[in-house]
């Protein structure tokens, strides 16, 4: 075991598999990672915290005649590895056999490298300082808190008993800002922005679209509810869609198909959205730090056109559910993008008779039927093509199935978060209400 502690990641994951097989597993897979993380946390007045973390995580999955058991650990000590193998075996022995339980057969990719080797702390600091300077000079009413510029360097190796071996190293920067505006007793709602990149954020103000968001915070010091309940339009911002996309993805997942709880179960090949709406899964995008080269079963990821011009092409099915549903595997990692349209955001706003610029959804998770109801945060009331005022105590209610079909404009402009990329979407038929 001493050699395990000094083994390379590839050797460590392969050795975990070998030990599982030697102990009697019918199949096994292991994943190991070395993580290095560095973070600078700040508020208006400067730095609060500088944090560095090293970790050495691993997971082992053991299959015993169709039964599966998992264990994860961090550290490489003899006792920890032995305890994790015990846990995985005990769980598998206790498990429920299922014909879908197995390791994947897949091509082994060449080891890959994404991003920089070492955190560029100087540029990270410059990014923080530049934002703070800009806040002081241009946004004196804005307060920021718990804001982060971080660098994450993760090397991951995978091995399974079919001889699949994968390795990738992905290092990325992340910048996030939590902010609000205050003037005397007047206060805006809290808002935040976040993005990741392979390069440090030397100018986060520009990269995160913070100018727009901070300006909106200052304009939100006097929020008001909508004048009355009405059914109207919403212009969904990229930040808002980022919070909603997971629910749509979940409804299109193999897990939901298996549960029988998705309203899209028999909709493959049919129009489920406006012809203006195209949604893709792009984990392979080399320029995107939010991607992945292989998934949790060691299967190389692939891009997928999920919805093209409103038509549902395919579901998001991972290795396990592909076997369970007897359908091809289409997705093992998610990184969504929505195709830009040809409308300008200004024209979209000008085209709204009555509705809201819908900037963030704060509500209960949409149910399986994709009904939603929640508070429109950081949002603005639009009437006769003009933004009238910031909204407070305003709720939106609707259904995502209908909302996707009711999309009538998609913006040219878009925001790339690194983990996803979305334009503004205009749709009708949402109930907007207040007290």
């Amino acid at each position, binding site marked *: 075991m001493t050699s395990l502690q000094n083994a390379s990641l590839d050797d460590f994951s392969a050795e975990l598999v070998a030990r599982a097989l030697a102990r009697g597993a019918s199949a096994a897979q292991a994943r190991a990672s070395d993580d290095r993380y560095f973070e600078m946390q700040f508020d208006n007045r400067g730095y609060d915290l500088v944090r560095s973390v090293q970790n050495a995580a691993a997971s082992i999955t053991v299959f015993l005649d169709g039964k599966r058991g998992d264990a994860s650990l961090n550290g490489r000590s003899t006792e*920890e590895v032995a305890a994790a193998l015990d846990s995985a075996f005990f769980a598998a022995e206790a498990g429920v056999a299922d014909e879908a339980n197995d390791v994947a057969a897949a091509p082994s990719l060449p080891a890959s490298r994404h991003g920089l080797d070492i955190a560029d702390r100087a540029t990270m600091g410059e990014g923080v300082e530049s934002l703070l300077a800009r806040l002081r000079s241009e946004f004196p009413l804005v307060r920021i808190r718990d804001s982060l510029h971080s660098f994450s360097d993760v090397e991951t190796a995978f091995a399974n008993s079919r001889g699949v071996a994968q390795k990738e190293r992905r290092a990325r920067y992340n910048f996030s800002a939590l902010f609000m505006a205050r003037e005397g007793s007047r206060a805006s709602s809290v808002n935040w922005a976040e993005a990741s990149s392979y390069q440090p954020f030397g100018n986060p103000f520009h990269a995160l679209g913070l100018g727009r968001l901070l300006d909106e915070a200052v304009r939100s010091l006097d929020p008001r509810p909508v004048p009355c309940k009405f059914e109207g339009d919403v212009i969904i911002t990229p930040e808002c869609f980022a919070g909603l996309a997971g629910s749509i993805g979940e409804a299109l997942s193999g897990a939901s198909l298996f549960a029988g709880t998705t309203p899209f179960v028999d909709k493959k090949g049919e129009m489920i959205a406006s012809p203006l709406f195209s949604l893709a899964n792009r984990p392979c995008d080399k320029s995107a730090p939010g991607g992945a080269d292989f998934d949790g079963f060691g299967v190389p990821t692939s891009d997928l056109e999920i919805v093209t011009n409103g038509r549902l092409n395919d579901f998001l099915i991972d290795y396990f559910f592909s076997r369970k549903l007897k359908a091809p595997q289409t997705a093992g990692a998610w990184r969504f993008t929505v195709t830009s349209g040809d409308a300008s955001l200004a024209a979209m706003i000008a085209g709204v008779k009555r509705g809201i610029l819908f900037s963030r959804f704060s509500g209960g998770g949409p149910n399986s039927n994709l009904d939603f109801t929640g508070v429109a945060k950081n949002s603005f009331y639009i009437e006769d093509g003009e933004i009238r005022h910031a909204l407070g105590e305003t709720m939106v209610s609707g259904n995502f199935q209908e909302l996707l079909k009711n999309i009538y404009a998609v913006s040219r402009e878009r925001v790339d978060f690194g983990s996803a990329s979305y334009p503004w979407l205009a749709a009708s038929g949402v109930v907007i209400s207040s007290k």
Partner: protein
Amino acid sequence: MLERLAPFADRFTSPGELRRHVNSSSRIAMRKGVLLSNGQSRDGGISARVYRNGVYGFAAAPQDDDDAIRAAIAAAEDNADSVGRADAGGAPLAASALGEGVYDYRSARPSTTPAGRVEILRSLDAAIRGKFPHLVNVDITLSSHASEKTLVTSEGARAYSYVPRSVLGVKMAIEANDGLVELYNSLGGFGEIQDQSFEPLSLSAWLDDLYEELRRKAEGGQCEAGLQDVVLDSDLAGILAHEAIGHTCEADYVLAGSVAGDWVGEAVASEKITLVDYAGRGFDDKSSFAIHVDDEGTVCRDVTLIEKGVLRNFLHSKKTAAELGAEPAGNARAFSFSDEPLVRMRNTAIAAGADKLEDMIGAVESGYYLKRATNGQADFTSEFMFGVSCGYEIRKGKLGRAIRDTTISGVAFDMLKTVTHVGDEFRWSGAGGWCGKKQPIAVGMGGPAIKCKITVGGRG
């Protein structure tokens, strides 16, 4: 471990903490009788945090040998020294009562074996699907989490804790005439799996109630949007205490601009409302979560946030307490070895009143009785929201048809002034909750039923 860590506390050249922290968890998930996850995890290591020149330096690593401890302290100091903060200039942290002691809530019973855990799910699944064959889907999850911490500080705090929690969750789905309807409920809470009663026989009535509420929900309708008279059951009072008030009163958020900062000493609620963030396991020692010493080494004591409607206090770390001239009461908490302590709630609850639930419902001409919450969020403005998965219309003082999923919202410091009744029956939310604020953290929450006015979302 306390003995091994203690000598290293003298190595800090400025205020510092050294924490060995291990989270152990298990999760088994079954969908339609198929095990989708079946495993355990362990995540632990050592962390050091120092405070100098107004900045915290923090470092963590998975090893906990002497070399790793020395390296963590050195890295934390390097991190603190790597940046400056001109305005703070080494402002001292607030002093606090030093925590000491061993708080070990490990079960005395033999652990439930992996086979025993799977059998709980398998037998429950068989019971549910046998009894209610028309269900479209059944999800059952059994999860446990235990946080084991050893903490020493340069000031002299010495504490060890082991705090477990385990939860059984069941979600059923049924077809309604307009689509699928689902309902989830959970039970369990403080303690390990072997401390709970998760056998199907003992849960028969609980499962029957869940199915009956699901059936009624499938026959129910959408809420009427707008400001409504509502009776919030105790499950919602707990999340109300947490989301609507608790977050607003976290001192780091107050410093960030939370409107609560303007209201200390002012009436922010009906005088029937008293709201406390409890140390330990709460006033009755029955909450789902326990804490006696926080991760800065401060002895935990109760903090009354609202006393008979008047805002009294905030929740503090040593740093926020210094900035706002308060005394820390043990609210600095970290989720994992790799996390720094943040200002967090512990067991947050509205105190019981004197009203009967039936009288509250009887006092509503037209409104809703809301029984169970899902997720929630808060804002620095004190505007809050939380999802509601189970509830009923009230018409002329009587319960009517069930409602579908909705979200309720309000501005806490307005809404709490509309409270006219506070129930006489206090309940902690059984399975407890998890709060997200940079890190997840286990929290307890509770309260009685209350009657108030609140904004309800819906398409009706």
